[in-house]
């Protein structure tokens, strides 16, 4: 077989159907082979390679499968990098294929040459430059294996153009043998016992749940643990949807724009049981003042996540679901009434609220109404980055894991829309909505053509404040209202823009129109762009100012 034939055969063996990309000189051999198998795949041609990487990422987050993207050498590959870094920071399994110049020309500054394995080394879990067609099948097999196992992440395979043309016998290895890579899934029984004991001794425990629970599929176990031992639960941005939002033990999201009661629980608890969470600075606030009374148990598949930012007393390395299953029978029921009463009091005192208006559209209201209109359907929400992202996290109630796609670690503007493309391709049955900012949406607006070409009925809701709102908020609160370089009121007419691409566009300027507009958009079989003209200077509250402790939150008191 030729290298190109091997490439296509390997994709089939890995069960790849939908994937995303953009062609160019160095990948013509691969695309030519693909052409012969066109009906067996659903290849989605994006309009910018960054979108291909984000789409593969959105596909992976929404389905739990490995997402695949492909781009040409040089500029094609460098355009992928933002998407690869985004996936890396949020532990998303994707395999990226890039073309490369001929093996003999590597290192000669050939046309469209870039050292792609060099560039992507710090933003991939692993990467490969294929130097011999003999290695191609093994490398692809390993790439998928590494991407999805352990702590998942992006893997890049750089394929020189001559490798696609070279011939060899096809041999797809049955098993992957990597002596330097052996993820550990089973938690140490002794450590698990210690966690059970710590829970038993704790008066004020707190379950701090992160994205690892989504990846591991451990949400049921988390709920059982919480209910059995009456432990309140906070879920990070990456874990929204892993715990029932209306559950009495639920505290919502912690951190910079989390609820005051989740943050107070961190301050007052005597035990943190962290599951698949990594004590990110957006969660902990000022690290020296974080959880001053708490012993910390940390369950994580990545040993390097443990004791990285805070000192951990009981580490348990392994898969969250397996470990929680071992832990559950060891945990004794305990009512913990006074702790939960305390938390209920905080909840009553500091509910998450905003002041609505009957003259201007409030973004929080839009998000609430989107929730109300979609709560009875299988819905996947993507966000961009900025205020739109935080309002979505605060006011949309996520009932199931893998229903929120958002760039948490890297905070990549322009992520949401192409991620929606991936999600819709992987979940054709689901309703997919991108809640966007007017700044972020313009970072990958060209993908409107992709959704039209491929018949992806994605709905976009722009919370349009004419500002790079989150930056403006910081400038307003901490930089003396000096609005430097954040006014983006000069913008296209989004309705006309949608229409120019051949899709429905809507502008909503009054609160009374919000719900009807959403319903109308949802009735539309194709893609729709909704331009919500919101209060320009609305802020996201409450907020822990950067560098402050979690109990030093400001704002949000109605």
């Amino acid at each position, binding site marked *: 077989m030729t290298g190109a034939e091997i490439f296509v055969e390997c994709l089939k063996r890995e069960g790849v159907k939908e994937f995303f990309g953009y062609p160019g000189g160095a990948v013509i051999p691969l695309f030519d082979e693909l052409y012969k198998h066109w009906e067996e795949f659903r290849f989605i041609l994006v309009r910018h390679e960054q979108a291909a990487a984000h789409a593969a990422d959105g596909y992976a987050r929404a389905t739990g499968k490995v997402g695949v993207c492909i781009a040409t050498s040089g500029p094609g590959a460098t355009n992928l990098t933002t998407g690869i870094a985004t996936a890396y920071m949020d532990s998303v399994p994707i395999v990226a294929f890039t073309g490369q110049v001929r093996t003999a020309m590597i290192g000669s500054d050939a046309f469209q040459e870039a050292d792609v*394995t*060099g560039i992507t*080394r*710090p933003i991939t*879990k*692993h990467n490969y*430059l294929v130097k011999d067609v003999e290695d191609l099948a093994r490398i692809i097999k390993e790439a998928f294996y*590494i991407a999805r196992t352990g702590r998942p992440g992006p893997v890049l395979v750089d394929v020189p153009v001559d490798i696609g043309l070279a011939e060899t016998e096809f041999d797809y290895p049955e098993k992957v043998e*990597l*002596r*330097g*890579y052996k993820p550990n899934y089973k938690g140490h029984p002794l450590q698990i016992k210690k966690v059970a004991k710590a829970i038993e001794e704790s008066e004020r425990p707190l379950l701090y749940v992160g994205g690892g629970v989504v990846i591991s599929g451990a949400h049921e176990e988390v709920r059982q643990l919480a209910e059995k031992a009456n432990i309140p639960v906070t879920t990070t941005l990456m874990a929204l949807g892993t715990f029932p939002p209306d559950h009495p033990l639920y505290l919502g999201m912690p951190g910079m724009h989390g609820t005051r009661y989740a943050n107070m629980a961190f301050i007052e608890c005597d035990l943190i049981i962290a599951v698949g969470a990594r004590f990110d600075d957006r969660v902990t606030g000022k690290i020296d003042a974080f959880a001053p009374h708490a012993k910390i148990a940390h369950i994580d598949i*990545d*040993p*390097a996540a443990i*004791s*990285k930012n805070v000192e951990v007393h009981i580490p348990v390395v392994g898969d969250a679901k397996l470990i929680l299953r071992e832990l559950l029978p060891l945990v004794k029921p305990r009512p913990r009434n006074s702790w939960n009463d305390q938390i209920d009091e905080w909840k009553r005192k500091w509910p998450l609220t905003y002041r609505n208006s009957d003259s201007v559209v409030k973004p929080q209201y839009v998000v609430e109404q989107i929730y109300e209109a979609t709560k009875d359907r299988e819905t996947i929400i993507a966000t961009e980055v900025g205020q739109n992202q935080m309002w979505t996290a605060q006011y949309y109630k996520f009932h199931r894991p893998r229903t929120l796609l958002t760039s948490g670690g890297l905070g990549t503007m322009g992520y949401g829309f192409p991620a929606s493309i991936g999600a819709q391709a992987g979940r054709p049955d689901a309703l997919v909505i991108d809640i966007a900012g007017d700044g972020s949406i313009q970072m990958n607006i060209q993908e409107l053509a992709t959704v039209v070409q491929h018949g992806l009925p994605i709905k976009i809701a722009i919370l349009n404040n004419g500002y790079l709102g989150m930056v403006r908020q910081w400038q307003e609160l901490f930089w003396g209202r000096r609005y430097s370089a954040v006014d983006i009121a000069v913008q296209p007419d989004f309705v006309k823009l949608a229409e120019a691409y051949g899709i429905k566009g809507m502008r909503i300027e009054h609160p009374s129109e919000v719900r009807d507009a959403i319903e109308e958009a949802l009735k539309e079989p194709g893609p729709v762009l909704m331009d919500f003209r919101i209060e320009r200077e609305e802020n996201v509250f409450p907020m822990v100012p950067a560098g402050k402790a979690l109990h030093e939150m400001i704002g949000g008191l109605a």
Partner: protein
Amino acid sequence: MKHTIAALVENRFGVLARIAGLFSARGFNIDSLTVGETEDPTISRMTIVVEGDDRVLEQVMKQLNKLVDVIKVSDISSQKFVDRELVLIKVNAPRSRRSEIMEIAEVFRAKIVDISPNTLTIEATGNEDKIKAIIGMLKPFGIKELARTGRVAMLREFRGEV
């Protein structure tokens, strides 16, 4: 504190860059790094000497362990180990001072490996203290050139008390 890290890695292109990249990404300055094939030609052994805060170092070790190409990493400084370094020193040696220099070399069991009318080149091996000492002794003569291999190290097999 100085740490000596021994790593067994896949003998493949790009591995050195991965490892060096990890250190620089975390703001670690590498004092020395040596790499060479082991008894198994598919495996290389790296000896890395770094100076740094224990907690940061622990993080770097964990990150190293995560690399697919890294088979085993250990911080051997906490155990008994032998370490050696080789140094080549080209020193000013006018005829009048030659015997003095050769005496010093002899004390350190170093070898004269090259000679010219005005210089001697000395090869010495030993642990860090010894290398420091011979360099210190030769400095007054005027060192013209110095090349060090960096440290190689291995755990001692006999760990019992004597």
